[in-house]
């Protein structure tokens, strides 16, 4: 057995079906500039009429080599690059690196930092899921959903702008703490937003979830069974929709998740509808988590190390992960004892989730491809890194 290296051209050969009356299968190129690319993913479809026979995803159109860049930066500088991977859950990406580094360097984090981190991360999870909901609506033709979701996204964003100063690339959670302390009226503002978001999640249900056309488009489409999801390495809402309750916030609680009561939302069949509704429910659960934590944020410093100290990790291999809005973001660090990682690898949730389309899309139509792709909620720079 030897390793055979192939190129894309080797794959793009449409199977010929000789004989009378046979249909000609053809390739259709979606992306890198296509509304369903959600950025710049290229998907090549082998089609028979409108029915999908084969799906070939071609990522790499925003591959910037972040892992190589990390080898040249110290542990504090890495944080800002993680913002630009999965920009919709930037805080959770920050947290993944910070958590790995803290555990490896033995930095003890106080309760205040953990609570602030948890609240911020959950706020961003709501924001991320709201955006996903709007984009799914837009992909399926309900354009108004998109604008409603952005209306709410901006309202949550005001909190981030006030505390962090950034709208998208936060660079907030650092190894050893958070960059800025919260303002005195933080709790009141967050409570106001939560009561607003509660009503808005109901509105999402009224506008889109209850719609007959949407249910027709999503129910029973693109079923991903639990065993396949596990084998494919899917995580996050995609795995939970298939019925397996793997949520790091519950399985190995980090941050302040232990203090909060919440349910892990799971689906039953693993179709697009389950993936849709798991996320809608997760928004409600996130609201629930924040409501429990917001009232008693413990006192203490927001940075336990000095900000400018260089962190050195003892030689070894470190792997740690957090649950982002899309799934498990793992950070693998191999340190040789220096200020910079010798090798740093991100196990990105979208990368593993994306490949589920190669299994679940064949047999469905082009229009279902849109629903499947939307329901997986991929962020392309997270795949490419």
């Amino acid at each position, binding site marked *: 057995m030897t390793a055979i290296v192939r190129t894309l051209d080797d794959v793009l050969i449409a199977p010929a079906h000789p004989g009378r009356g046979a249909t000609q299968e*053809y390739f*259709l190129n979606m992306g890198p500039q*296509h*509304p*369903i690319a959600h950025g710049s993913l290229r998907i090549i479809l082998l089609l028979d009429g*409108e029915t999908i026979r084969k799906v070939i995803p071609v990522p790499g159109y925003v591959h910037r080599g972040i892992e190589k860049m990390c080898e040249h930066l110290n542990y504090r500088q890495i944080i800002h690059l993680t913002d630009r991977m999965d920009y919709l859950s930037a805080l959770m990406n920050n947290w993944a690196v910070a958590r790995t580094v803290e555990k490896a360097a033995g930095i003890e984090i106080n309760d205040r930092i953990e609570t602030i981190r948890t609240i911020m991360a959950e706020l961003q999870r709501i924001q991320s899921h709201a955006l996903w909901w709007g984009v799914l*609506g*837009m*992909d*399926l*033709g*309900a*354009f*108004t959903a998109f*604008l*409603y979701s952005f*209306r709410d996204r901006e309202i949550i964003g005001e909190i981030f702008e006030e505390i962090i100063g950034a709208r998208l690339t936060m660079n907030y959670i650092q190894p050893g703490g958070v960059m800025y302390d919260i303002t005195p009226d933080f709790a009141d503002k967050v409570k106001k937003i939560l009561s607003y978001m509660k009503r808005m999640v109901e509105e999402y249900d009224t*506008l*889109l979830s209850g*719609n007959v*056309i*949407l249910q*027709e*488009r999503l129910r029973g489409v693109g079923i991903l069974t639990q065993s396949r999801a596990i084998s494919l390495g899917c995580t996050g809402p995609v795995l939970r929709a298939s019925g397996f309750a793997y949520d790091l916030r519950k399985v190995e609680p980090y941050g302040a998740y232990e203090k909060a009561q919440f349910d892990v939302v799971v689906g039953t069949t693993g179709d697009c509808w389950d993936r849709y509704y798991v996320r809608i429910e997760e928004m409600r659960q996130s609201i629930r988590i924040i409501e429990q934590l917001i009232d008693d944020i413990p006192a203490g410093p927001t940075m336990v190390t000095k900000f400018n100290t260089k962190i050195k990790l003892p030689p070894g291999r470190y792997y740690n992960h957090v649950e982002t809005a899309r799934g498990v973001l793992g950070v693998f660090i191999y340190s040789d004892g220096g200020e910079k990682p010798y090798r740093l690898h991100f196990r990105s949730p979208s990368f593993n989730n994306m490949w589920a389309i190669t299994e679940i899309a064949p047999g469905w*139509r*082009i*229009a*279902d491809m*849109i629903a499947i792709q939307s329901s997986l909620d991929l962020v392309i720079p997270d795949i490419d890194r």
Partner: protein
Amino acid sequence: MDFIYSMTTCTAAADVITLADRAAAAVDTNIWLSILYMVLALVGIGALTAVLGVVLIYAERKIAGHFQCRLGPMRVGPHGILQTVADTLKLLLKEDVVPASADKAMHFAAPLMSLMATVLVLGVIPYSPILQVTDVNIGILYVTAVSGLGVMGILLGGWSSNNKWSLVGGMRAAAQMISYEISATLSVLVMVLFAGTLSLSGIVQSQESGWWIWRAHGTGLVAFVIFIIASTAEINRTPFDIPEGESELTGGFHTEYSGLRFAFFFLSEFINMFAASAIAATLFLGGWMPFYIEGFETFNKITSLIPPALWFLGKTAFLIFIFMWFRWTFPRLRVDQLMRLEWKILLPIGFINLIAAAVIVLTKFYFFPV
């Protein structure tokens, strides 16, 4: 029940004089007057097309804006009323790209065909008793036939662009529009049965004692709903916009069109929407007939003060608003679901409705005087 049915009775019918009638009457006495009327009709239809395009696109953008908690165009002219003028001018002056591998002649003909099919319909619509270009005695048949040509333009556009997205869009359009044509025609036939005429002015005049949507023992209402659904599909608007399917097919049949030719497709979509609303208003909502309630003489006097043309425009605008409402609320259907809706749901209902209407007309089994 009687009250509801008699809600929309008219007291007096106006005489219909079309522009074609005037031209014909003037041929013997003054040939120039006759030609003047013809030119007037041509210019009128041309101006209507242009004005409708500008106004409807502006309305669409404003209405969409307000549906979506924003303002819509604001900067170009007061409240952005010159926005579509700017858009039109820009599209006219934009480079006209014809793909190298496209079929040039068909690529050129497709948008023209699409626009022509819609503009031809405008000629027979009775805007008011004295404002109609010509009242063909097979008016509604003509409308069905001519608007059916629109699909040819879209199919040609999709085929000649030599682009896979366009082709898929064109094929979807052909399947969809031809299917829904059947349902639309079936519901039109119901009205033809009741009115006993194919002429559009004749159908309007037949509603002087009440609009067909109330009057035809429920068959009118069913036919109206089917007609609205079918015309949404025929004019390719959400939830039936699968031939364009912005997020699926990038632009569907008009993916490869730019500048003026794209403007033609864009315009024809909006003119089509106006035509569909106008036909629906004519058939079901009494066209230019005012809204009368029997017994309320003061109210009736006030309503009859409003000119018929305004009644017509008001009803049409209401239906156009409904189309826009659909568009900014519903998600898009899938191709097979779309076909299922037509062939398994709308078509059987349409046939049953038609048979019921035929039975009512044949047996004269009226609950109230028609």
